[in-house]
Protein backbone atom coordinates (compact mmCIF):
# COMPACT_ATOMS: atom_id res chain seq x y z
CA UNK A 1 0.00 0.00 0.00
CA UNK A 2 1.30 3.45 -0.94
CA UNK A 3 0.06 6.77 0.33
CA UNK A 4 0.74 10.45 -0.23
CA UNK A 5 -0.77 13.84 0.57
CA UNK A 6 -2.00 16.18 -2.12
CA UNK A 7 -3.83 19.36 -2.99
CA UNK A 8 -6.87 19.38 -5.26
CA UNK A 9 -6.28 21.66 -8.24
CA UNK A 10 -9.55 21.15 -10.12
CA UNK A 11 -11.20 19.08 -12.81
CA UNK A 12 -10.66 18.87 -16.55
CA UNK A 13 -10.72 16.14 -19.17
CA UNK A 14 -8.11 14.18 -21.11
CA UNK A 15 -8.29 11.66 -23.96
CA UNK A 16 -7.20 8.03 -23.60
CA UNK A 17 -5.36 6.04 -26.28
CA UNK A 18 -8.68 5.12 -27.90
CA UNK A 19 -9.59 8.80 -28.17
CA UNK A 20 -12.31 8.56 -25.53
CA UNK A 21 -12.78 11.58 -23.29
CA UNK A 22 -12.13 10.90 -19.58
CA UNK A 23 -13.18 13.33 -16.82
CA UNK A 24 -10.26 13.73 -14.45
CA UNK A 25 -9.35 15.52 -11.24
CA UNK A 26 -5.89 17.07 -11.18
CA UNK A 27 -4.10 16.67 -7.84
CA UNK A 28 -0.80 18.25 -6.87
CA UNK A 29 0.57 15.28 -4.91
CA UNK A 30 3.73 15.80 -2.93
CA UNK A 31 6.56 16.24 -2.47
CA UNK A 32 5.93 14.96 1.06
CA UNK A 33 8.48 14.31 3.77
CA UNK A 34 8.65 11.48 6.29
CA UNK A 35 8.38 13.34 9.59
CA UNK A 36 8.03 10.43 12.01
CA UNK A 37 8.15 6.64 11.90
CA UNK A 38 5.99 5.07 14.58
CA UNK A 39 6.91 1.60 15.77
CA UNK A 40 5.10 -1.10 17.70
CA UNK A 41 7.69 -1.02 20.54
CA UNK A 42 7.56 2.73 21.09
CA UNK A 43 4.07 3.79 20.05
CA UNK A 44 2.04 0.57 20.16
CA UNK A 45 1.35 0.52 16.42
CA UNK A 46 3.18 0.92 13.14
CA UNK A 47 2.63 4.00 11.01
CA UNK A 48 4.46 6.62 8.98
CA UNK A 49 3.78 10.32 9.38
CA UNK A 50 4.00 12.49 6.28
CA UNK A 51 4.32 16.28 6.08
CA UNK A 52 3.09 18.33 3.12
CA UNK A 53 3.26 21.95 1.88
CA UNK A 54 6.45 23.71 2.93
CA UNK A 55 5.83 26.85 4.92
CA UNK A 56 7.60 29.34 7.19
CA UNK A 57 8.59 28.33 10.70
CA UNK A 58 6.49 31.20 12.09
CA UNK A 59 3.30 29.79 10.56
CA UNK A 60 3.29 26.64 12.70
CA UNK A 61 3.54 26.17 16.44
CA UNK A 62 6.90 25.90 18.18
CA UNK A 63 6.28 22.30 19.32
CA UNK A 64 5.66 21.44 15.67
CA UNK A 65 8.92 23.14 14.63
CA UNK A 66 10.76 21.04 17.23
CA UNK A 67 9.03 17.88 16.09
CA UNK A 68 10.07 18.52 12.47
CA UNK A 69 13.62 19.49 13.46
CA UNK A 70 14.00 16.02 14.96
CA UNK A 71 13.22 14.54 11.54
CA UNK A 72 15.44 17.09 9.77
CA UNK A 73 12.50 18.34 7.69
CA UNK A 74 11.64 21.92 6.70
CA UNK A 75 8.50 23.39 8.32
CA UNK A 76 5.35 21.88 6.77
CA UNK A 77 1.72 22.87 7.12
CA UNK A 78 0.01 19.48 7.26
CA UNK A 79 0.87 16.23 9.06
CA UNK A 80 -0.95 12.95 8.44
CA UNK A 81 -0.29 9.34 9.45
CA UNK A 82 -0.55 6.30 7.20
CA UNK A 83 -0.30 2.59 8.00
CA UNK A 84 1.51 2.03 4.74
CA UNK A 85 3.93 -0.83 4.08
CA UNK A 86 5.53 0.97 1.13
CA UNK A 87 6.16 4.12 3.16
CA UNK A 88 7.88 2.09 5.88
CA UNK A 89 10.79 1.48 3.52
CA UNK A 90 11.49 5.24 3.49
CA UNK A 91 13.88 6.73 6.04
CA UNK A 92 13.11 9.52 8.44
CA UNK A 93 13.28 12.86 6.62
CA UNK A 94 13.10 11.24 3.17
CA UNK A 95 11.17 12.82 0.33
CA UNK A 96 8.11 10.99 -1.00
CA UNK A 97 6.88 11.86 -4.49
CA UNK A 98 3.89 10.74 -6.50
CA UNK A 99 6.20 8.34 -8.36
CA UNK A 100 5.12 5.66 -5.88
CA UNK A 101 1.87 5.47 -7.86
CA UNK A 102 1.49 4.03 -11.34
CA UNK A 103 -0.95 4.56 -14.18
CA UNK A 104 -3.87 2.16 -13.78
CA UNK A 105 -3.67 1.95 -9.96
CA UNK A 106 -6.98 2.03 -8.13
CA UNK A 107 -6.70 4.60 -5.36
CA UNK A 108 -8.76 5.78 -2.42
CA UNK A 109 -8.95 9.56 -1.99
CA UNK A 110 -10.04 11.18 1.30
CA UNK A 111 -10.76 14.81 1.91
CA UNK A 112 -13.05 17.26 3.65
CA UNK A 113 -16.26 17.83 1.71
CA UNK A 114 -17.54 21.33 0.95
CA UNK A 115 -19.49 22.69 3.93
CA UNK A 116 -23.16 23.48 3.24
CA UNK A 117 -24.05 24.74 6.72
CA UNK A 118 -27.34 23.83 8.36
CA UNK A 119 -29.50 22.43 5.57
CA UNK A 120 -32.96 20.91 5.29
CA UNK A 121 -33.71 17.27 4.54
CA UNK A 122 -34.18 17.81 0.80
CA UNK A 123 -30.64 19.03 0.28
CA UNK A 124 -29.05 16.87 2.98
CA UNK A 125 -30.74 13.50 2.43
CA UNK A 126 -32.34 13.90 -1.02
CA UNK A 127 -35.88 13.74 0.37
CA UNK A 128 -38.63 14.59 -2.12
CA UNK A 129 -40.51 17.19 -0.09
CA UNK A 130 -44.17 17.79 -0.89
CA UNK A 131 -46.21 19.03 -3.82
CA UNK A 132 -46.53 22.75 -4.37
CA UNK A 133 -50.29 22.45 -4.81
CA UNK A 134 -53.17 19.96 -4.31
CA UNK A 135 -53.89 21.21 -0.80
CA UNK A 136 -50.35 21.01 0.63
CA UNK A 137 -49.78 23.95 2.93
CA UNK A 138 -46.80 25.17 4.93
CA UNK A 139 -44.66 22.04 4.47
CA UNK A 140 -43.30 22.09 0.91
CA UNK A 141 -39.77 21.04 1.88
CA UNK A 142 -40.50 19.09 5.06
CA UNK A 143 -39.57 15.51 5.92
CA UNK A 144 -43.00 14.07 6.77
CA UNK A 145 -43.55 11.77 9.73
CA UNK A 146 -40.66 11.05 12.10
CA UNK A 147 -42.29 8.09 13.86
CA UNK A 148 -45.41 6.47 15.29
CA UNK A 149 -47.59 7.66 18.20
CA UNK A 150 -47.81 6.64 21.87
CA UNK A 151 -45.98 3.44 21.07
CA UNK A 152 -42.96 4.06 21.07
CA UNK A 153 -43.62 7.65 22.25
CA UNK A 154 -40.24 8.80 20.99
CA UNK A 155 -38.30 9.36 17.78
CA UNK A 156 -35.71 6.70 17.05
CA UNK A 157 -32.04 7.55 17.08
CA UNK A 158 -30.21 8.35 13.82
CA UNK A 159 -33.48 9.39 12.12
CA UNK A 160 -32.59 11.49 9.09
CA UNK A 161 -33.37 15.13 9.80
CA UNK A 162 -32.14 18.65 8.98
CA UNK A 163 -28.71 19.65 10.26
CA UNK A 164 -25.10 20.36 9.35
CA UNK A 165 -24.33 19.09 5.88
CA UNK A 166 -20.86 18.76 4.40
CA UNK A 167 -17.56 19.81 5.99
CA UNK A 168 -17.03 16.18 6.96
CA UNK A 169 -14.43 13.59 6.03
CA UNK A 170 -15.42 11.80 2.83
CA UNK A 171 -13.56 8.94 1.12
CA UNK A 172 -14.01 7.91 -2.51
CA UNK A 173 -12.64 4.46 -3.41
CA UNK A 174 -11.61 2.81 -6.66
CA UNK A 175 -10.53 5.90 -8.57
CA UNK A 176 -8.29 4.98 -11.49
CA UNK A 177 -4.97 6.80 -11.85
CA UNK A 178 -4.88 8.20 -15.39
CA UNK A 179 -1.56 10.01 -15.33
CA UNK A 180 1.43 10.39 -12.98
CA UNK A 181 4.04 13.11 -13.44
CA UNK A 182 6.68 13.09 -10.65
CA UNK A 183 8.46 16.06 -12.29
CA UNK A 184 5.49 18.37 -11.85
CA UNK A 185 4.15 16.43 -8.85
CA UNK A 186 0.85 15.78 -10.59
CA UNK A 187 -1.57 12.88 -10.33
CA UNK A 188 -4.68 12.67 -12.49
CA UNK A 189 -7.48 10.40 -11.27
CA UNK A 190 -10.65 9.56 -13.14
CA UNK A 191 -13.74 11.10 -11.57
CA UNK A 192 -14.40 13.53 -8.76
CA UNK A 193 -12.76 13.78 -5.34
CA UNK A 194 -14.19 15.35 -2.16
CA UNK A 195 -13.76 18.97 -1.21
CA UNK A 196 -13.09 22.36 -2.72
CA UNK A 197 -10.12 23.37 -4.83
CA UNK A 198 -6.88 23.70 -2.84
CA UNK A 199 -8.28 21.27 -0.26
CA UNK A 200 -5.95 18.74 1.39
CA UNK A 201 -6.33 15.18 0.10
CA UNK A 202 -5.02 11.82 1.30
CA UNK A 203 -4.36 9.43 -1.58
CA UNK A 204 -3.93 5.74 -0.76
CA UNK A 205 -3.59 2.64 -2.84
Amino acid at each position, binding site marked *: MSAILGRK*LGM*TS*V*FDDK*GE*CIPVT*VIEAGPCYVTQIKSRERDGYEAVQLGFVETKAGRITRPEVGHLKKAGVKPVRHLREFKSAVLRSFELGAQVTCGIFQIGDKVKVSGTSKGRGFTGVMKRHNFSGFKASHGVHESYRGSGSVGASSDPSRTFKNWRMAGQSGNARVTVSNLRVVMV*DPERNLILVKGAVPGARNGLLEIQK
Partner: protein
Amino acid sequence: MSLLKSAYQSELRTDLPDFAVGDSVDVHVRIIEGNKERIQIYTGVVIARHGGNSATATYTVRKALKGFGVERIFPLHSPKIEKLVVKRSSRVRRARLYFLRARSGKAARLRERTN
Protein backbone atom coordinates in the same frame (compact mmCIF):
# COMPACT_ATOMS: atom_id res chain seq x y z
CA MET B 1 0.79 28.84 -16.72
CA SER B 2 -1.09 27.34 -13.83
CA LEU B 3 -0.27 23.82 -12.72
CA LEU B 4 -3.81 22.75 -13.62
CA LYS B 5 -3.38 24.03 -17.19
CA SER B 6 0.00 22.33 -17.53
CA ALA B 7 -1.71 19.00 -16.81
CA TYR B 8 -3.72 19.05 -20.04
CA GLN B 9 -1.66 21.40 -22.22
CA SER B 10 -0.19 18.54 -24.23
CA GLU B 11 -3.71 17.30 -25.05
CA LEU B 12 -4.73 20.46 -26.87
CA ARG B 13 -4.77 20.50 -30.66
CA THR B 14 -3.26 23.37 -32.57
CA ASP B 15 -3.87 22.03 -36.06
CA LEU B 16 -7.57 22.95 -36.27
CA PRO B 17 -8.69 25.92 -38.39
CA ASP B 18 -10.52 28.86 -36.86
CA PHE B 19 -14.24 28.26 -37.14
CA ALA B 20 -17.27 30.00 -35.74
CA VAL B 21 -20.95 29.45 -35.07
CA GLY B 22 -22.83 29.47 -38.39
CA ASP B 23 -20.02 27.85 -40.38
CA SER B 24 -20.76 24.84 -42.58
CA VAL B 25 -18.08 22.29 -41.84
CA ASP B 26 -16.88 18.84 -42.86
CA VAL B 27 -15.84 16.89 -39.76
CA HIS B 28 -13.59 13.95 -40.67
CA VAL B 29 -14.27 11.39 -37.93
CA ARG B 30 -12.07 8.34 -37.44
CA ILE B 31 -14.17 5.24 -36.98
CA ILE B 32 -12.71 1.93 -35.81
CA GLU B 33 -14.60 -1.19 -36.85
CA GLY B 34 -12.87 -4.28 -35.49
CA ASN B 35 -9.30 -3.87 -36.69
CA LYS B 36 -10.08 -1.57 -39.58
CA GLU B 37 -10.09 2.18 -39.36
CA ARG B 38 -11.92 4.43 -41.78
CA ILE B 39 -12.86 8.08 -42.04
CA GLN B 40 -16.45 9.23 -42.05
CA ILE B 41 -17.23 12.77 -43.13
CA TYR B 42 -19.97 14.46 -41.17
CA THR B 43 -21.19 17.64 -42.85
CA GLY B 44 -23.37 20.24 -41.16
CA VAL B 45 -23.69 23.65 -39.59
CA VAL B 46 -21.96 24.57 -36.31
CA ILE B 47 -24.85 25.76 -34.16
CA ALA B 48 -23.02 26.13 -30.83
CA ARG B 49 -19.55 26.25 -29.31
CA HIS B 50 -18.91 25.69 -25.62
CA GLY B 51 -15.85 26.21 -23.46
CA GLY B 52 -13.71 28.41 -25.69
CA ASN B 53 -10.38 26.71 -26.37
CA SER B 54 -10.16 24.80 -23.07
CA ALA B 55 -9.57 21.06 -22.75
CA THR B 56 -13.28 20.43 -22.18
CA ALA B 57 -14.49 22.58 -25.10
CA THR B 58 -17.11 21.14 -27.46
CA TYR B 59 -19.03 22.18 -30.57
CA THR B 60 -22.38 21.05 -31.92
CA VAL B 61 -22.87 20.28 -35.61
CA ARG B 62 -26.41 20.03 -36.98
CA LYS B 63 -27.45 18.57 -40.28
CA ALA B 64 -30.71 17.49 -41.90
CA LEU B 65 -30.67 13.80 -42.71
CA LYS B 66 -33.63 12.48 -44.73
CA GLY B 67 -35.93 15.03 -43.20
CA PHE B 68 -34.69 14.45 -39.67
CA GLY B 69 -32.49 16.91 -37.84
CA VAL B 70 -29.30 15.26 -36.48
CA GLU B 71 -26.98 16.96 -34.01
CA ARG B 72 -23.59 15.69 -32.94
CA ILE B 73 -21.49 17.15 -30.18
CA PHE B 74 -17.73 16.81 -30.73
CA PRO B 75 -15.01 17.51 -28.14
CA LEU B 76 -12.90 20.26 -29.72
CA HIS B 77 -9.57 18.54 -29.00
CA SER B 78 -10.69 14.98 -29.71
CA PRO B 79 -7.98 12.89 -31.40
CA LYS B 80 -10.81 11.04 -33.17
CA ILE B 81 -11.21 14.02 -35.47
CA GLU B 82 -8.85 13.56 -38.42
CA LYS B 83 -9.45 17.10 -39.63
CA LEU B 84 -12.04 19.81 -39.85
CA VAL B 85 -12.75 21.76 -43.05
CA VAL B 86 -14.71 25.00 -43.13
CA LYS B 87 -16.80 25.06 -46.32
CA ARG B 88 -18.78 28.25 -45.88
CA SER B 89 -19.19 30.98 -43.27
CA SER B 90 -22.46 32.72 -42.43
CA ARG B 91 -23.43 36.06 -41.02
CA VAL B 92 -25.21 35.22 -37.77
CA ARG B 93 -26.31 37.52 -34.98
CA ARG B 94 -26.39 35.15 -32.05
CA ALA B 95 -23.95 32.81 -30.30
CA ARG B 96 -26.18 29.71 -30.37
CA LEU B 97 -28.32 28.95 -33.40
CA TYR B 98 -30.89 26.85 -31.55
CA PHE B 99 -33.68 28.53 -33.54
CA LEU B 100 -32.61 26.36 -36.50
CA ARG B 101 -34.14 23.37 -34.71
CA ALA B 102 -37.61 24.73 -35.38
CA ARG B 103 -36.87 25.34 -39.07
CA SER B 104 -36.27 23.14 -42.07
CA GLY B 105 -35.67 23.48 -45.79
CA LYS B 106 -35.50 26.99 -47.18
CA ALA B 107 -36.29 28.56 -43.80
CA ALA B 108 -33.12 27.05 -42.32
CA ARG B 109 -30.80 28.90 -44.69
CA LEU B 110 -28.18 31.31 -43.34
CA ARG B 111 -26.84 34.44 -45.02
CA GLU B 112 -23.30 33.94 -46.31
CA ARG B 113 -20.59 36.08 -44.78
CA THR B 114 -18.62 38.18 -47.22
CA ASN B 115 -15.63 40.00 -45.90
